[in-house]
């Protein structure tokens, strides 16, 4: 059993809740490892089709574990086991939805940006305050943030260390919806279950194609999209989806 997470299943959706309340869900190495393990488990579990990741009402995650970080010197950093955990989280192939309440700072903001869809409570705050400690973001904060909010705001956040509000985050495109904090998880679960009812292979390839758009040039991205699109022509779910539409009934996808 993971110590730093609570895991619950809601039919085809898995809800993972970060649980280190005493440390505002600071991302200790243990927590990162457990999260990566849990996501890998979900990846291999055919009954799970989407994952919602959340923290507490007060904090999604308030950053990395500073005590741990202080202990690592240059060589320690080079051998940092956390990098491998981050890569496993990045590699999660199913839709990942973050329900963010309260603080999403530093590593917490970076973790939220690993999600495919971000839903925020009205009082959520996003920020990369690493600069205040004489360091900088180290888990994608300078890369994913810029892609999400554009250069000027990303520079302002990373260089000044000052957080932005949920509303600002939505205007900038970092999050897709704002809800009252009491409903953030519920809304994320709704979206996850909507997605869980779609054809899993189509969802997986669509997610991959969208992520390619951030990394590849347009021509390569379009080529990837077309190949993925063609691949789906060979699936049973595609035939079912089209037939159900023609017959005006809900589709029943089985992931084949």
């Amino acid at each position, binding site marked *: 059993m993971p110590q730093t997470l609570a895991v619950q299943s809601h039919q085809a959706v898995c809800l993972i809740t970060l649980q280190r309340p005493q440390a505002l869900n600071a991302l200790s190495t243990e927590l990162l490892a457990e999260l990566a393990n849990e996501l890998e488990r979900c990846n291999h579990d055919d009954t799970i089709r989407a994952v919602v990741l959340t923290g507490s009402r007060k904090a999604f995650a308030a950053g990395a574990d500073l005590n741990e970080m202080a202990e690592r010197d240059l060589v320690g950093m080079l051998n940092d086991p956390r990098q491998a955990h981050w890569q496993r989280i990045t590699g999660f192939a199913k839709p990942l939805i973050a329900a963010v309440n309260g603080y999403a700072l530093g590593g917490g903001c970076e973790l939220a940006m690993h999600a495919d869809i971000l839903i925020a409570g009205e009082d959520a705050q996003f920020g990369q305050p690493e600069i205040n400690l004489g360091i900088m973001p180290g888990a994608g904060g300078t890369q994913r943030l810029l892609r999400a909010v554009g250069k000027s705001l990303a520079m302002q956040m990373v260089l000044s260390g000052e957080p932005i509000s949920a509303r600002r985050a939505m205007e900038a495109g970092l999050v897709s919806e704002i*809800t*009252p904090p*009491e*409903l953030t998880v*519920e*809304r994320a679960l709704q979206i996850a279950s909507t997605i869980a009812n779609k054809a899993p292979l189509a969802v997986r390839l669509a997610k991959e194609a969208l992520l390619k758009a951030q990394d590849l040039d347009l021509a390569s991205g379009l080529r990837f999209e077309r190949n993925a699109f063609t691949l789906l022509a060979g699936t049973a779910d595609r035939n079912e989806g089209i037939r159900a539409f023609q017959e005006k009934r809900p589709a029943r996808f089985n992931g084949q």
Partner: protein
Amino acid sequence: MTFEHILFSIEDGVARLSLNRPEQLNSFNTQMHEEVRQALKTVRQSGEARVLLLTAEGRGFCAGQDLGDRNVAPGAAVPDLGESIERFYNPLIRTLRELPMPVICAVNGVAAGAGANIPLACDLVLAARSASFIQAFCKIGLIPDSAGTWALPRLVGMARAKALALLGDRLSAEQAVEWGLIYRCVDDADLRDEALKLARHLATQPTYGLALIKRSLHASLDNTFEQQLTLERDLQRLAGRSEDYREGVSAFMAKRTPVFKGC
């Protein structure tokens, strides 16, 4: 908890906060700011209050900032007014607006400067017939603060907002009601009783539901139609989970008077 510049009590769900520097027309100095902040914190955190009644002692309501408290003598270093707004007025206005319960303001006399705008951050404003509102800022080279420039055009329209803010003329309580700036105007002798009656009524109502109403009305000023429909859905979902909603429905079905707990 003893206060020097305000009166404060919570009784039967009614929190009463009265500005109490009558000789200075209840103008704000640093200590009064601190005391108001402390009292509002208690209102928010004690769990006892279900309505806040804000008023003042003496013949005036509030003359805004105590200018004697700001060093603006010729030749002296220019004070950073932004700093004092960031530190005192903006948090006060935010707190009044976001307090999860109805906030009644009883304006007992002249309300000038920030003192004219503090009532506008409250939910229900009653004024004595002899009270008046003066956006005095323009007369000393300043702009209306404490959310005055935000509230005025929304309450009375841009044309009247500009006249009030640019001319700094005295607006009578009756005219303020007619313009939609405040809710009601009553005879001076009745203000205290009327305000208290309203407060006592609200203290028995479904406070959580009222807080959600307040929240949705505030949000409507910034939201698009579609955003507001979504918000109504979300907040109704929350309201529907409250104990008071159950009580309201069951009292209605049983044809009895509901007893609301505020949650």
